[in-house]
């Protein structure tokens, strides 16, 4: 038999039918739905008299536009409230399970899927959201789709798709202290560019990847889309199985034993060929900070803001000049030392419990700089509860951070959490596009440890020089 990649195995197992014109009808095991990209899809079903084919494989949550303040206060934004109500109505009418604002399991869709054990190796998972790639950390083929395709999946439980190509990102070596999964993926995007993986599914391989925890793997796969990829994948292993064990929606009993055995065998065959290969040495990666308005505009923290003329093509030079103007930066400026006004610890990239722990270790015993407003928005209510159990909320609050309820929040600023024009923000999210966090806002992407350090220092700093405090519960955590 021809050796097959992990991607190919999952793809082949989900082909319902090959259409004569080329693409395949792919079966979807799990369809995640949120309030912003679904109302038109449900409306489309109503209009055509169609129904949700498999409500049992469809899960809904609210995350994008939800307020992160007090849950007991009615939602101030009537338009956002209307969208939340629409999802509630659609879910009820279609018998789709919904994790709403009252649910202890509410959270960012890409945080709660894994947390509940809904996300499992070998699945095909889709969601009307580009960061669906996050679920690829479990060896699931997971990709973002548009609203028309959401409607298509609701109606048919299938998606029409052409087979993407494969790209192996082989990451060798071990990252140094203070270098996070976020730095690895930012460095990779810096290397291959924001369209470097367009039309491809990335499989991340190599010892640096194998050594990552599940949460770190999610950070890596999450940002596959920022490299242009259709999806990101990491083969399941003991780490994956250990993470899923005992999760509420993971298989139980004999089914669990069977599934776990299968999952551990699910990987690319030796000698399987990828269409493209890229390599990165984790040991050579320093903490990364973006300087521009695209995630590929990224440098080491010790680096300097580039000059537009450093770029080879006229288009890139124009883009760099525009980005510098928007970001209020001049060529040659050092990134380290750049003052920040806001710090955002949150998003589906970096708001899981490990992210909050490392940020708390940086922050403990310090104060947020007086001119900085800093915000922690846990990725889910479960993450929030866990963090509070560990006393992390106290560390953040005592340092001067605001401690919020879960949601997408300032990752995209659809709720009240936005930057003011000209404000500079150290952010653990995934997109530094113009206006992403608020019109005129200036976003620098970085890891949770780097963002936490920036909050304390009031400027961009290299976290590698810092001594990390122990956490109150660190003895129990370690055991």
């Amino acid at each position: 038999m021809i050796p097959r990649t992990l991607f190919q195995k999952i793809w082949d197992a989900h082909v319902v039918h090959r259409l004569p014109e080329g693409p395949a009808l792919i079966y979807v095991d799990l369809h995640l739905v949120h309030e912003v990209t679904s109302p038109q899809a449900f409306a489309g079903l109503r209009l055509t008299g169609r129904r949700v084919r498999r409500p049992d494989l469809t899960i809904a949550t609210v995350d994008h536009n939800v307020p992160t303040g007090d849950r007991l206060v009615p939602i101030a934004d009537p338009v956002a409230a209307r969208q939340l109500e629409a999802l509630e109505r659609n879910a009820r009418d279609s018998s789709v399970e919904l994790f709403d604002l009252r649910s202890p399991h509410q959270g960012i869709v890409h945080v709660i899927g894994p947390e509940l054990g809904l996300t499992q190796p070998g699945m095909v998972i889709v969601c009307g959201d580009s960061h669906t790639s996050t679920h690829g950390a479990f060896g699931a083929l997971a990709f973002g789709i548009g609203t028309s395709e959401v409607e298509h999946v609701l109606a048919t439980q299938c998606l029409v798709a052409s087979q993407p190509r494969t790209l192996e990102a082989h990451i060798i070596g071990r990252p140094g202290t203070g270098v996070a999964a976020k730095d690895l993926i930012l460095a990779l995007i810096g290397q291959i560019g924001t369209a470097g993986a367009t039309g491809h599914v990335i499989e991340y391989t190599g010892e640096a990847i194998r050594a990552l925890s599940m949460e770190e793997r999610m950070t890596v796969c999450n940002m596959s889309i920022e490299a242009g990829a259709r999806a990101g994948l990491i083969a399941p292993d003991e780490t994956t199985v250990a993470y899923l064990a005992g999760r509420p929606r993971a298989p139980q009993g004999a089914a669990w034993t069977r599934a776990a055995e299968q999952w551990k065998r699910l990987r690319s065959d030796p000698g399987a060929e990828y269409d493209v290969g890229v390599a990165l040495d984790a040991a050579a990666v320093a903490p990364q900070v973006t300087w521009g308005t695209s995630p590929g505009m990224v440098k080491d923290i010790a680096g300097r803001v580039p000059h537009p003329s450093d770029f080879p093509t006229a288009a890139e030079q124009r883009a760099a000049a525009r980005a510098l103007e928007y970001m209020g930066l001049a060529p040659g400026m050092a990134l380290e030392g750049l003052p920040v006004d806001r710090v955002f610890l949150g998003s589906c990239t970096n708001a899981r419990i490990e992210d909050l722990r490392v940020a708390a270790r940086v922050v403990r015993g310090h104060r947020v700089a007086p001119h900085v407003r800093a915000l922690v928005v846990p990725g889910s209510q479960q993450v929030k509860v866990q963090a509070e159990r560990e006393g992390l909320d106290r560390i953040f609050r005592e340092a001067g951070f605001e401690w919020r309820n879960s949601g997408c929040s300032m990752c995209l600023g659809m709720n009240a959490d936005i930057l003011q024009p000209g404000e500079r923000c150290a952010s653990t999210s995934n997109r530094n596009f113009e206006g992403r966090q608020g019109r005129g806002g200036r976003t620098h992407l970085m890891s949770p440890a780097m963002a936490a350090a920036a909050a304390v220092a009031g400027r961009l700093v290299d976290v590698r020089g810092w001594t990390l405090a122990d956490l109150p519960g660190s003895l129990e955590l370690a055991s």
Partner: protein
Amino acid sequence: MQPFVRHVGKAAALPRTNVDTDQIVPKQFLKRLERTGFGPSLFHDWRYRPDGAPNPDFELNRAEAHGATVLVTGANFGCGSSREHAVWALAEHGFRAIVAPSFADIFFANCCQNGLLPVRLLAREVDELFRRCRAAGGEYWLTVDLEQQRVEDGLGFTAPFPMDPYRREMLLRGLDEIGRTLLEEPRIAEYERRRAAGTAP
């Protein structure tokens, strides 16, 4: 879906790369429940100044761009968020085709779902269109022919473009993809039976 066979229309140039869907429709406009009403928010933060007045520096606000139905732009157009609202806004504004060296995958699929034709040309061909568009000073017309898979300006520029046969057929005939897939219902049901029995591939 509105079919796309052949379109003759005025071109407007937006010579920027990596135009993301957050620029095409900023998030504050994503709260609608309908597929309509997004035209006015197209490129909002570029098109309007913070005080709401049109920004005269923005390419599409210039007189030459008024009435354009073919957008010529840079590589990796439509990157970022999966929001189909971006496509709805472009279509509602009047665009019928977008010509660029490359598109982000999800955006490309979203275009095809809405009869807005994404046309991939070589980077040097797009550069040539930028040049011609600029030189023509506002009266530059393009013919985008999906049947022939070709872009022409009637002044010597002609270039073929790729489109996979499935999407081409859907676009040419303006087919409802869900209706098409529902014809495969027996196959879907059969797949589900095999899955449940543990005999799927």
